[in-house]
């Protein structure tokens, strides 16, 4: 870690870093030029596959592999969508990338477009990111004015335009098929898969949805090669620079760029300066609100890459790390979380629409001192019925259209299982006794 130099956030804080002029002085668009002029689509896909880059949107799916699902000989147009919805609680990395270096993201989109032969790409950005949307519009305008977007970019015969689409503030529009529906002008209701977006996505055409951070990595992979990327971080299988969002009870919350596989304790105690007021750590939510909470003892030596966090019974997700100290009331946190999910459920499938609200009602009852002993098992059963039995070795048994069901079931379940004693303190009988 000591000799790690930031890659994605290198220019953060530099005056003018969001402008094209600044970006061009700092090797900007060289990778895109190279991909457009000197590389075939297959070559781009291959180098990204070889690099081991995994999607940074949450699921950690290998990016090159995802691209290779796009049917090559389909006569339909192919679309790339940059997922800038960043709505997972605890996550605020994409926003930083857009704010400080929008061209890096756009360059990544050009490279991805080359890879999948896309000529119209979209940036789906959450509605609240007003400033960021404007910044992107300005940056895209700069590109168009300099023939880096539009007809025949960089003097080639490759056409590409990128449009910004602002969402209206729904968490579920970050889920890729909900996003696609929303982009089509419909209600953000996720679609049943298959067909997967790579076959039938936006306007029933082959579509790739990639996260902002995923795309921002691409210029560096093209310029420096797959081996260079593979060598970054502790894990050969899950390499690269990674943005970690630290929030909650730490002294210095913020986005930290570090090699994948950095230890969670290093992130918390060194980069983020340790626990606020030097209190004791109680628990950490490691990958955004959808990831199961880990207790203080579970994070010892935990490496922050996709496979390691999964092995620990949670997930790296969006790397939104929420640190909870000893003063935290876990029942309240759990209730708050359930309430968020009940509010954000699109309401399409039965278990999620009904179950999230049921959980919220039960948990609210707890916070009001009306919990019953049997409710604890009931909560666990309800989470099972929404998100399926959680056994990472078997995969999940999701009962919903989209992974939102699991996203609420897993964390709620973890809270109740790992902090059962705190829930017991809220029981109505115990209060009376």
């Amino acid at each position: 870690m000591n000799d790690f130099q930031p890659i994605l956030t290198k220019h953060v804080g530099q005056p003018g870093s969001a402008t094209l002029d600044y970006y061009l002085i700092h090797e900007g668009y060289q990778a895109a030029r190279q991909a457009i002029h000197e590389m075939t689509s297959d070559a781009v896909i291959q180098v990204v596959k070889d690099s081991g880059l995994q999607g940074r949107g949450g699921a950690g799916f290998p990016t090159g592999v995802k691209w290779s699902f796009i049917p090559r000989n389909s006569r339909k147009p192919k679309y790339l969508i940059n997922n800038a919805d960043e709505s997972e609680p605890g996550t605020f990395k994409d926003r930083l990338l857009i704010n400080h270096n929008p061209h890096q993201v756009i360059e990544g989109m050009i490279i991805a477009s080359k890879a999948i032969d896309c000529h119209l790409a979209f940036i789906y950005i959450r509605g609240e990111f007003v400033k960021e949307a404007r910044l992107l519009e300005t940056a895209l305008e700069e590109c168009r004015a300099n023939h880096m977007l539009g007809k025949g970019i960089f003097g080639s015969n490759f056409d590409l335009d990128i449009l910004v689409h602002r969402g209206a503030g729904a968490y579920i529009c970050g889920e890729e098929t909900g996003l696609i529906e929303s982009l089509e002008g419909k209600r953000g209701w996720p679609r049943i898969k298959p067909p997967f977006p790579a076959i039938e996505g936006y306007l029933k055409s082959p579509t790739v949805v990639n996260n902002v951070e995923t795309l921002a990595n691409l210029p560096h992979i093209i310029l420096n090669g797959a081996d260079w990327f593979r060598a970054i971080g502790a894990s050969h299988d899950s390499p690269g620079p990674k943005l970690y969002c630290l929030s909650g009870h730490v002294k210095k919350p913020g986005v930290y760029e570090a090699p994948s596989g950095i230890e969670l304790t290093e992130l918390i105690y060194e980069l983020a300066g340790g626990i606020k007021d030097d209190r004791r750590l109680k628990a950490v939510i490691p990958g955004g609100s959808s990831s199961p909470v880990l207790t203080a003892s579970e994070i010892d030596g935990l490496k922050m890459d996709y496979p390691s966090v999964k092995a620990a019974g949670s997930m790296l997700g969006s790397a939104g790390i929420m640190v909870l100290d000893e003063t935290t009331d876990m029942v309240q946190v759990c209730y708050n979380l359930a309430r968020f999910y009940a509010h954000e459920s699109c309401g399409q499938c039965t278990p999620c629409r009904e179950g999230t609200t049921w959980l919220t009602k039960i948990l609210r009852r707890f916070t009001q001192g009306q919990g019953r002993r049997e409710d604890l098992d009931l909560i666990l059963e309800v989470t099972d019925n929404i998100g399926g039995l959680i056994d990472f070795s078997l995969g999940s048994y999701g009962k919903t259209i989209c992974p939102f069901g699991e996203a609420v079931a897993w964390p709620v379940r973890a809270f109740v299982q790992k902090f059962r004693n705190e829930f017991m303190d809220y029981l109505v009988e115990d209060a009376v006794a």
Partner: protein
Amino acid sequence: MPLLKIDDQTFEVPKGARVLDEALKAGIEIPHYCYHPALSVVGSCRMCAVEIDGIPKLQTSCSTLVGELPPEKKFEGQYDMVVHTRSDKVVAARKSALEFLLLNHPLDCPVCDQAGECLLQDYSFKYGHAHSRFIEEKRVRPGEDLGSGVVINQNRCIMCTRCVRFTREITGTHELFVENRGNDNRIAVFDGHPLDNPLAGNVADICPVGALLLKDYMHTTRVWLLSHTPSTCTECTTGCSITVDGAKDRIYRIISRENAQANGHFICDYGRYAFHQYEDDVLTTPQLKDGAEWTEISWEEAYQQVVDRIGEYGGQQAVRALASPTFPNESNYLLGQLMNQLTDKKSIALLPVKQQEDQVFPMGFRISGDKGGNHRGARDVIHNLAAGTQSFHKGDLGVLIVLDGDGRGEITESIERLFAAAPFTVVLASNRSDITRLADLVLPVAGPFEREGTVTNDQGLVQWLQPAVQLKGQARPDWQVVAELSQALIGEGAMYTCAGDVTWKINQTIEAYSQITRFKIGKFGQFVESAA
């Protein structure tokens, strides 16, 4: 062809076959709410989840299509897909889906019109929990009038969105949508844009629970008190298959009866509510006009009147007739036969009906503009049909015998002239209409839902009309009255003992109908031989 195994049954199915469809076809029940064969698949209710070998997650059988596996990947060396509909996991998933659906449900079955034909009730009984574990407060929301005679009970809605998809995909009118998000989801219409299309009533038919209800039917009866008669709508030449739900002498509602050869899954609102048109001014006895007064007479007197008047006004050669575009083939056929024997001219024409524009909906449903539901059949089964009534005025015009048009007969100038010129007019009708008002003698016959026989739609599909309610007063079946008239006038007709006898006679004498039998018509009809 892929080999599909569902539980212990094996099927060869076409590639791309839908697991749910295949199961249902084979009589294997997989409970489902959101899936409807006429609508797009959303897979949202989660009731139809099944376990499929090789896939760890349960899959919705509505959205799972059977593909073909390479030989080395086939299950048990032969199956392309192995589906379990009764495994522990499936049973548990159904149970939990039902539990979720009932959390906020008011459980007001005793006052709910859907009770007895409610999929929530049926599946809960079969697959659900007996007790609720939900002790929180239920979500309570007021009901609303959505327009076009449809109301919604929001508390019973299970958000299957069949109705929303119906107005998007079938009618293309887009009135219904889902408002709000998550647990606050509700079916709604936009302010000032109520449900307003001629197929609107179908949303109540396809609602699997008691959420969408027809005002017309609401709180009128209980479904288990009704008899369900499969029949055919004659309100236009589309000829939809319907089920007439009635009890003794009253019809409570008409719903669509699925028939791929005719209407598909739906019916229009004209047809749905048409039965109300025949509730008033029902004719129950033969009546003779005496100046401005109508006098009730017996059937014997009535037939004698016809015989006497024919003798009085020019004899048999002077008799003219109008066939009905709405009556079944049988009475039209008999009238045609009678006329061909009474006269040696083209002495029978069709009563004209009001014509409108066809209404065609995006998914192909068509409400025909031709309101003479059996127009084609009447033309098919009458020999020597005159193109119009002009020729009737040549020479003597004697007694005019008319089959009514069930309120859809149009009194054109030439019809008015004909009635004015005829010295004596006999009308066979079920209800008083514009036509009966012009008659001298009215013979009460079966109404549209009391008739029996065949009707032929504009595609040449012959379907059966099944009487759904009893005849009123002294009214007689239409075919029988024409047969009795024939008996009185030419001594032929007594050999017919039921409508089916006449159907058989049509089969024997009308070339195009030589394949049409009651048996072949069955529930879904039989096409006439095309001329080509």
